[in-house]
């Protein structure tokens, strides 16, 4: 935040807030540029202050902007402003072939590219009537759950950054992330943009050495998690800053379409891995962690517990991984022309329900390509969670929702 009066009314920047001038007042969320602090005159509520945070702000997780109206330090109104990273994802998807859209899905949620690939592959498989091979389904679970661990690990680091620990937990998280990224790089060739899933299977088959390395990493992961939790979970400052902060009621969460850990923290046991049972998830024995209060602390704990469950799933997947082809030999990827129709493929991504809705008109490109981004829909309740809290808490609440702007703005 920069304490600069806007240039729109330079002569009035020093006007007392309680004077009768109402020139500085403008409707909330008007498209002003840049970060600014302005005084808003409201005869009924005393002196309110309108603070614009972002799009360049270290704690808004990218180019996100929120316009907060403050009474003292308490937020009485908050308006999120999106669109600073609108990269025309859906329009580009309509102009490229089905396969050529796959690399673009990596760049939606760039902390968890693998699960985006998976959801898109699932949607196209539904549309074109293809089925992934057994081994590919297991490999999808392996890479998807590893991606979930990476995402949650980084999220906890970023959340503590927002709490003011200034980088140290993030260093631990990124140390672990690098180990996973090395494995992904060995498997797919890139660190972040994997382009790994194909319709009917996966692109390359993991070698036995790769699987052994991945298994060793997963077996050692609970030890890191214990160490991480020992530093963070019982921390007194952390408890004081997160417990009871940013409460979300289960009714509102369901009505607003919230999914993922944010929904489960409110006590609603809705996990698409269990509800849909897509892929081979019904064969694994795992539990879905559910919160109690729906506050920031519960949302943090959801991530920690889900990482532990992911480790359990991964160990079962490594044990049961069958032999066979990684991709259906008859699978059609290039020049795919599905019959006219529509399909919606969704999976439980690290942030919630990530879904792709496709309408085919029988040509090589989808007629309509729509992404259901979890973090954009989870962001809609930001104001309800922030009301009555201070600005510093709003930063923490935003951090606990886990947004990635590539997915919010698309």
């Amino acid at each position: 935040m920069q304490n600069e009066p806007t240039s729109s009314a330079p002569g009035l920047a020093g006007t007392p807030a309680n004077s009768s001038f109402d020139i500085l007042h403008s409707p909330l969320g008007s498209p002003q540029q840049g970060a600014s602090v302005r005084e808003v005159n409201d005869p009924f509520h005393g002196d309110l202050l309108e603070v614009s945070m972002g799009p360049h702000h270290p704690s808004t997780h990218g180019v996100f902007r929120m316009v907060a109206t403050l009474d003292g330090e308490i937020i009485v109104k908050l308006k999120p402003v999106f669109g600073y990273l609108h990269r025309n994802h859906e329009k580009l998807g309509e102009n490229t072939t089905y396969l050529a859209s796959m690399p673009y899905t990596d760049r939606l949620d760039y902390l968890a590219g693998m699960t985006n690939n998976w959801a898109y592959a699932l949607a196209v498989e539904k549309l074109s009537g293809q089925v992934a091979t057994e081994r590919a389904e297991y490999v999808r679970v392996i890479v998807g759950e590893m991606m979930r661990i990476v995402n949650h690990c980084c999220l906890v680091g970023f959340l503590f950054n927002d709490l003011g620990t200034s980088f140290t937990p993030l260093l631990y998280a990124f140390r672990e992330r690098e180990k996973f990224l090395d494995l992904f790089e060995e498997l797919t060739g890139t660190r972040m943009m994997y382009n790994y899933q194909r319709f009917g299977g996966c692109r390359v088959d993991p070698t036995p050495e790769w699987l052994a390395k991945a298994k060793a990493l997963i077996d050692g992961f609970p030890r890191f998690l214990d160490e991480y939790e020992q530093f963070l979970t019982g921390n007194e400052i952390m408890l004081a800053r997160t417990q009871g902060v940013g409460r979300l009621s289960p009714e509102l969460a369901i009505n607003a379409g919230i999914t993922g850990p944010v929904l489960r923290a409110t006590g609603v046991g809705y996990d698409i891995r269990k509800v849909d049972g897509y892929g081979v998830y019904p064969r694994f024995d795992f539990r879905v962690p559910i919160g109690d209060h729906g506050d920031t602390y519960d949302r943090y704990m959801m991530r920690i517990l889900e990482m532990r469950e992911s480790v359990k799933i991964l160990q079962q997947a490594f044990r049961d991984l069958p032999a066979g082809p990684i991709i259906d030999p008859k699978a059609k990827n290039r020049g795919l022309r599905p019959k006219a129709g529509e399909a919606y493929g969704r999976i439980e991504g690290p942030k919630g329900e990530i879904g792709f809705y496709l309408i085919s008109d029988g040509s090589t490109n989808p007629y309509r390509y729509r992404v259901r981004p979890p973090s954009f829909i989870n962001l809609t309740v930001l104001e309800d969670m922030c009301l009555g809290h201070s600005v510093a808490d709003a930063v923490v609440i935003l951090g606990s929702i886990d947004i990635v702007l590539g997915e919010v703005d698309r």
Partner: protein
Amino acid sequence: MSEAPAISQEERDELRRNGILLTSLEEIYNWGRSNSVWPLQFGLACCAIEMIAATCSRFDIARFGAEVFRPSPRQADLLIVSGTVTKKMAPQVVRIWNQMGEPKYCIAMGACAISGGPFKQGYNVLKGIDRFIPVDIYIPGCPPRPEALLNGLIQLQEKIKSQHLKGPDAPRHLRDDVDCIYPVPEFGEHDLVPPKNPNLYEPPTLVRPDKP
């Protein structure tokens, strides 16, 4: 500063071994500047994650004196444009660039910042940040690896070390013929207004070979 040194390199080395350091003002000025480049903490898109990875323990950008990421543009020397610049964001990026104090440098990190990258066909994507601000180093990749960012930083340090206090190689703030303020575009009805800074960028002219 272009005169030949009065003593040879061997003599300087001999003196340094005996505890006497001889240098020129220009050399020590550039040495200090190039080894304490403070970047702006400013992430735009995917590349920002690799920028964070470069600051973390494995790649450790602190080895090159650039670990002090400043949230305020007033305290930063280096703008790393890390990701896609959309037309809605471009005015803010140019404004941040103007808020930084000279001497300042700009790295365009990733294909999107260089040319629009995979999103170049999009109606809302700026086709390269060099249309509005002067870019010193281009780092290709989608996203570039942290090693590539470190390599770009080393290249930038070389560039800083090769600058002179006078003449055409001087940094912008020591020259009279260059304006340090860059016009901020507006988010217009159809495109940015103006769509480019004509002093910085001219679209390449296509030269067709003559038909035989």
